[in-house]
């Protein structure tokens, strides 16, 4: 069982690829195997020749189960590098097409451990997890053998010192020769997690080699986008990882958009109201084409951009605009709708539900333009019904 947490409300995190995570670790002196990225077979060979054999070729995708899918291979000579690089580049792993490889020195593994830091929301502290049973999914360890994980609650004000880390590696029963190195590595990983503004910093496996060297063989790092103002180095991580043209267009326009498969295009202000709008559309028999939160303080330009993005989706049969003004003023929203109608031909009818700050003014602005294809409804549920009716009619 893999716990999946639905987090459409948390737009503010950035998942790094393994290679980016390892490069991030290097900034904090966390030992990782020597390696480099390769976007072609030729590059893979050049990197491998530079490192010396054997090497490991690893598909760079943000999805688990790479190994089983054939995305991780050892090469002991140039011919094998060519063969594996050819096979892995372009490989489809659970819908993620491999466009980049990480080529690194092959490591001999004596033991595999697990280490991570993340925020414990319930206790409002940081939480370290350390286990002598690494290399497998930590959820499985947590379920089958919870005592094998040493949990460490860390006061964000006080942080983690080396003495505590030493007690921790002892408690987790890491092998004796690995303990001091692991303790030092954990202090560095904590520093990376805090100073690097990570939402999650996870190493699985953290390995000890047969000659007792401890290093991070994998890296899973999630960054807190809210901290980007103090991390100019993150710009390099922001390369797009979506192939949905609708999402790319929305991102270019700075919109919080997630593409779905239905026929009702949705625009709402606030993540909660946007989710609620999806719920209501579903409850009255419709399907949402997207999740789109135009946020607080949305103005005419944002509204127009949102309508343009949804208009570009060929599956959309109707657009449901659900606005409850707070900071967002409904008159601005109304003007945005009219602005969008002037700028582009909107192919689908628009059903609006407008309430909150300056709602009366907003409705007055739209009044002269209302028609069979530009409709206002007084409540969220009625508006959803009206919108869904358009998708079911002839």
């Amino acid at each position, binding site marked *: 069982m*893999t*716990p*999946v*947490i*639905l*987090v*459409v*409300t*948390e737009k*503010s995190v950035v*998942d790094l690829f393994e290679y980016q995570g390892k490069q991030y670790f290097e900034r904090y002196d966390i030992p990782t195997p020597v390696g480099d990225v390769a976007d072609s077979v030729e590059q893979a060979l050049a990197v491998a020749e530079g490192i010396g054999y054997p090497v490991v070729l690893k598909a760079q995708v943000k999805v688990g189960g790479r190994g089983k899918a054939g995305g991780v291979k050892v090469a002991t000579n140039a011919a094998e590098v060519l063969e594996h690089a050819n096979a892995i580049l372009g490989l489809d792993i659970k819908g993620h097409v491999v466009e980049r490889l990480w080529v690194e020195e092959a490591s001999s593994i004596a033991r595999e451990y697990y280490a*991570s830091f*993340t*925020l414990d*929301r*319930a206790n*409002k502290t*940081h939480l370290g*997890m350390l286990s002598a049973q690494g290399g497998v*999914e*930590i*959820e499985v360890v947590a379920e089958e053998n919870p005592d094998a994980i040493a949990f460490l609650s860390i*006061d*964000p004000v006080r942080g983690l010192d080396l003495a505590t880390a030493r007690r921790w590696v002892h408690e987790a029963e890491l092998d004796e020769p690995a303990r001091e190195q692991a303790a030092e590595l954990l202090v560095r990983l904590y520093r990376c997690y805090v100073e690097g*503004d990570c*939402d999650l910093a*996870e190493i*699985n496996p953290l390995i000890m080699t047969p000659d007792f060297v401890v290093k991070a063989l994998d890296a*899973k790092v*999630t960054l*807190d986008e*809210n*901290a980007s*103002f*103090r991390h100019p180095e993150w710009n390099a991580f922001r390369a797009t990882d979506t192939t949905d043209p609708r999402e790319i267009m929305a991102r270019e326009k700075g919109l919080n958009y*997630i593409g*779905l498969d239905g026929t009702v295009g949705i625009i*709402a202000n*606030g*993540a*909660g*109201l946007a989710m*609620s709008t*999806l*719920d209501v*559309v*579903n*409850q009255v028999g419709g399907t*949402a084409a997207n999740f789109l939160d135009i946020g*607080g303080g949305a103005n005419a330009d944002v509204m127009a951009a949102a309508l343009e993005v949804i208009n570009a989706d060929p599956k959309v049969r109707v657009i449901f605009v659900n606005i*409850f*003004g*707070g*900071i967002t003023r409904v008159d601005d929203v109304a003007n945005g709708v009219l602005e969008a109608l002037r700028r582009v031909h909107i192919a689908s009818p628009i059903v609006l539900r407008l*309430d*909150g*700050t300056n709602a009366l003014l907003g409705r007055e602005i739209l009044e002269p333009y209302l028609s069979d294809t530009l409709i206002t409804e007084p*409540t*969220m*549920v009625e508006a959803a019904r009206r919108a869904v009716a358009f998708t079911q009619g002839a």
Partner: protein
Amino acid sequence: MSIFVDENTKVIVQGLTGSQGRFHGLRNRDYGTKIVAGVTPGKGGSDVDGIPVFNSVVEAVAATGASASFIVVPPMFAAAAILEAAAGGITFIVCITEGIPAHDEAVTYNRLVEDFPGVRLLGPNCPGIISPGKCNIGITSGDIALPGGPVGIVSRSGTLTYQALHELSQQGIGQTTCVGIGGDPVPGTNFIDCLAAFQDDPETKAVMMIGEIGGSEEERAAEWIKAHMTKPVVAYIAGVTAPAGRKMGHAGAIISGSKGTAQAKMDALREAGVYVCQNPTEAGAKMVEIVHAMGL
């Protein structure tokens, strides 16, 4: 009665001289809130539409006797502003700032707990608090709230907070206090804090709770309700049909001890005796039914 604030609460606005601070600070004052001062470093001695501005919270509190602060500053300054308010003698802080780094929130929360145990922080990234007819601190539009009770509202989602107020006010059902706790990773005030305050407030007869997917705060609230709450609670959880977004890190999934889905939350709340509804309108209708059945 109301919870956390009332008609006598004196409020300072940190960031009053900024465009957002000015807009909402004056809007809150127009509502009747006692906005007594603004704080902007370097702008002490000036005023915003007659409201005196001070350089620091300490000076503002000394001059006005304020006990509450409304923080409207950019995310990079918010953590420092919260701690300045606490150190300056403020006991109730409302921070609406969106986009504060999670690590700043974690440090700030723990500093408040350790060094200023008497201080309550609402937010960050929340719409604020409104006690209809008495006090409005935040960005909620005052005209959608109806004074007189008997319902208390607590909500994690900004816009759905307004929706909840609207659903009740439309039906002539007033509110004692409406608290938007915000959806950030480390909220200063959580569902349980608000549920406990509503349980103790004699004028609040029933509570409407609006949650959303992610985290485990709703499940914890359900446990608390089961053990302590005698007043009826109506809940709506947004995100039943939400798309599966990003899969949270493995570590996060383990510690939350919950799948974080709307279904898991609704099940926990139902199990605790809460009336769980499918959308905000249904939740409003259910609350009307409950209030009428009480003869109110």
